[in-house]
C-alpha cells in the first residue's frame, strides 16, 4: 500500500497538467478489473458495474496538486513563475522543483541572507521576487529546456518515519486516489464509479464536468484535509487531529453534507468500531461543492484523511488514518447495498 502511495505522491500532477499521475492511475485502476476511461477534461473514470442495481455511486478524489507555472524567462536564464492553487509564500524559499515534461530540476532562489537589508530579513519574500534557477546562464540555454507555460512541481520523495507516519508532497489528494484504487478492488451491488478528477485546486473544475456526465445517485468525496493539531494553534482550530481516524464533514465552505449520508457514515464507523472524527472547524472546500449541486442535486458527503502541512512539499499523514479510511469506506459501501 505504501508503494502505491509512493508512486502516486511522487508523480507530478499540478492542476491542468495531470498526465503523469493519470498514467499511473490508469494502470492501477485497470489492474482492479474496472472499466477505465478518460473524459474530455482529463478526469479518469473507473467503473465497476453493479451486480444487482443500476444505482450509481460516484466516488471522487482529485489527482491534481498545487504547484507553479513558468511565466517568464530572464536574460540570465532564470525562470519567473506563478502559483497554481493555494500555496503559502513563506514555504517557497530554497525548495526543489521539477519542471515540464522532462522534469528538469530547479531550485527556488532569492538573494542570500548576507545580501539582505535588516528589514528585508523580517519580511516574507514575495513570490514575484523569486526565481527558479535551473543552473543555466542564458535565456537561450534555458529555452532549450523550458517553455513558457510549463508546470513546475515540488520535488519531494515519500518517506516513512516515526510512528507509522509518512511524509510526502501531494497527499492532498493522492491519498484519496489511493483509497479509491483500493475500493475498486471489490465489486458491489450498485455501479461504483471512481472518478479521479482534474483541476480541483483551482476551483473543482474537473469534478463539475464529471458529475454532469456521470449523473450519479450519490456522491462521496475522499480528501486529504488540513490538520492543525500543532503547538500555538488553539484546540478549537485544529480542524482535525492526526491519528484519530478519518474525518467526516458535516459542513465545509463548499457544501453541507447530506444529513442522511452523514448520519449513516458516523453510524457505520460506530458500529464497526472504526476510529473517526468530526472536522472541528469549517475551512476549505472540495469537489463535493460541485457534485452536490450537479443537475437537480446529488446527496453527497466528504470523508478525509487528516494531513499536516498540507499544500507543502512535506505534508504528513498517519498510515493508521489512511487504513481506517479504507475500512470505513468499505463498510459504508457494503452497507449501501442494504439501503
Amino acid at each position, binding site marked *: 500500500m505504501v508503494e502505491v502511495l509512493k508512486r502516486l505522491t511522487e508523480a507530478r500532477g499540478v492542476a491542468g497538467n495531470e498526465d503523469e499521475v493519470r498514467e499511473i492511475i490508469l494502470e492501477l485502476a485497470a489492474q482492479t478489473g474496472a472499466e477505465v476511461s478518460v473524459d474530455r477534461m482529463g478526469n479518469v473514470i473507473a467503473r465497476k458495474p453493479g451486480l444487482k442495481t443500476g444505482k450509481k455511486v460516484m466516488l471522487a478524489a482529485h489527482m491534481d496538486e498545487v504547484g507553479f507555472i513558468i511565466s517568464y524567462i530572464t536574460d540570465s536564464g532564470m525562470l519567473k513563475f506563478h502559483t497554481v492553487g493555494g500555496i503559502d509564500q513563506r514555504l517557497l524559499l530554497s525548495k526543489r522543483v521539477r519542471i515540464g515534461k522532462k522534469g528538469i530540476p530547479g531550485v527556488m532562489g532569492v538573494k542570500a541572507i548576507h545580501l539582505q537589508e535588516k528589514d528585508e530579513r523580517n519580511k516574507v519574500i514575495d513570490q514575484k521576487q523569486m526565481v527558479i534557477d535551473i543552473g543555466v546562464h542564458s535565456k537561450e540555454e534555458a529555452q532549450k529546456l523550458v517553455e513558457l507555460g510549463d508546470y513546475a512541481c515540488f520535488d519531494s520523495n515519500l518517506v516513512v518515519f516515526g510512528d507509522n507516519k509518512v511524509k510526502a508532497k501531494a497527499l492532498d489528494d493522492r491519498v484519496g486516489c489511493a483509497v479509491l484504487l483500493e475500493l475498486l478492488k471489490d465489486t458491489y451491488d450498485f455501479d461504483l464509479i471512481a472518478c479521479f478528477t482534474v483541476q480541483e485546486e483551482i476551483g473543482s473544475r474537473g469534478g463539475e464536468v464529471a458529475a454532469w456526465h456521470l449523473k450519479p445517485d450519490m456522491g462521496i468525496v475522499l480528501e486529504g484535509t488540513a490538520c492543525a493539531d500543532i503547538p500555538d494553534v*488553539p484546540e478549537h482550530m485544529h480542524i482535525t487531529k492526526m491519528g484519530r481516524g478519518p474525518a467526516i464533514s*458535516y459542513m465545509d465552505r463548499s457544501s453541507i453534507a447530506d444529513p442522511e449520508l452523514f448520519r449513516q457514515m458516523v453510524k457505520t464507523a460506530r458500529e464497526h468500531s472504526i476510529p473517526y472524527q468530526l472536522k472541528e472547524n*469549517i475551512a476549505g472546500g472540495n469537489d463535493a461543492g460541485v457534485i452536490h449541486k450537479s443537475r*437537480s442535486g446529488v446527496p453527497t458527503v466528504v470523508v478525509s484523511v487528516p494531513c499536516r502541512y498540507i499544500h507543502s512539499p512535506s505534508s504528513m499523514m498517519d498510515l493508521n488514518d489512511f487504513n481506517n479510511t479504507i475500512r470505513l469506506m468499505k463498510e459504508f459501501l457494503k452497507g449501501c447495498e442494504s439501503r
Partner: protein
Amino acid sequence: MKELLANLTGVYGPSGKEDSIRSAIEKEIKDHVDEIRTDTMGNLIAVKKSTLSGDKPPVRVMTAAHMDQIGLIITNIDENGFLRFSNIGGVSPFNVINRRVVFENGITGTVSYETELENMKDLKLNKMYIDIGAANREEAEKQVSIGDAAVYYAPMAAAGNRYFGCAMDDRAGCAVLVQAIKTIKDSPNELIFVFTVQEEVGLRGAKTSAYSVNPAMAISLDVTLTGDTPKSRPMAVRLGAGPAVKIKDSSLICHPRVKNLMIDRAEEAGIPYQLEVLEAGGTDSGSIHLSREGVPSGVISIPCRYIHSAREMVDKNDLENAVKLLNSILENEIVL
C-alpha cells in the same frame, strides 16, 4: 401578513437544516396548490397549473424565496462546556455579541467572546463562543453535538407598520410568496413556487431546483439593503417606499424584459415601487439565470434594515405591495 410573518420568522431553519421551516410553509400552502414536492436538496416545490387548454404550452414561471437563515454551527466543545462555532452564511461577530441563540432541540445559549482581546476590531468568530450554561464538556454534550447549528432567538415585534425580527431575510420573501399563493387568481401561466434551501451559503438550492423546474422565466423574492438610516452608505432604496425592482447586484444583472415587465405591471396597477442597485450581495436569481441555457430572471426585493442581525426591520406596506406586484405579474399572460 403580520401573523404569517411572526410565525415564519419564529421557525428554526439555518442553511442545511430546513426541515422545520419547510414543514411550516408546506402546511400553509398545501391546500392552495395543485402539486407539492420536496427535492433531493430539500427545496419545497409547489405547482399551480395553467388554466390554458389547447396545444399552446403555458409559460412556465419559477418564483423563488429562500427558506434558510444564517446561523452558527458548533465546531468544538471545550472541557468547560463552552461551544466554539463557525458561521453559516454572513455572520458578523458584532451582530452576535451577547445575543441569545437557539438550537433545533430548543436549547438556548448566549454568545460571547474572549475578553483578553484588546482591540474590538480584531474580533473574529474564532475568538467567540456560545455559553449554554453547561458546567463541563459532558454536560454540554448531553444537550448539543458538534455540527449542530443555532439561530437567533428573537421573536418578532411590531411598531406600527414596521416589523422587527430575525430571519426577515428571507422569511419576508417566503411570507410574500405564501400570501401570493393564497390570493392569486387563475393564471394562464404554469406557476412553480420554490422555497429554496442553502441560499445563505451560496445560492445552492436555487441551482438544483432551477435545473429540475426548467423555467422559461424566473423571479426571486428576497430582502435588500436600504440607504435611509443616519449616515448610511448611499443607496436609493427606502423602507416603506414600495417593493424594489432589482436592476443588479453582485450575483446577476436582471434580464431587461423581466425588469421591464415588473415596472410595467407596477405602473399599470398603481403599485408603488422603487429601483434597486445593490453593490454587494446576491440572491437566488444569481443561480437561476445561469441554469441550463440561461433563464431570463429578475428579483422583487423587500427593503430591510439591519440585515443579518437579530433585529431586521421590514415595512408592512412593502410586503403587501410586493404581493400585489407579484400577483399582477403572475396572473397575466407573459410574453417573453
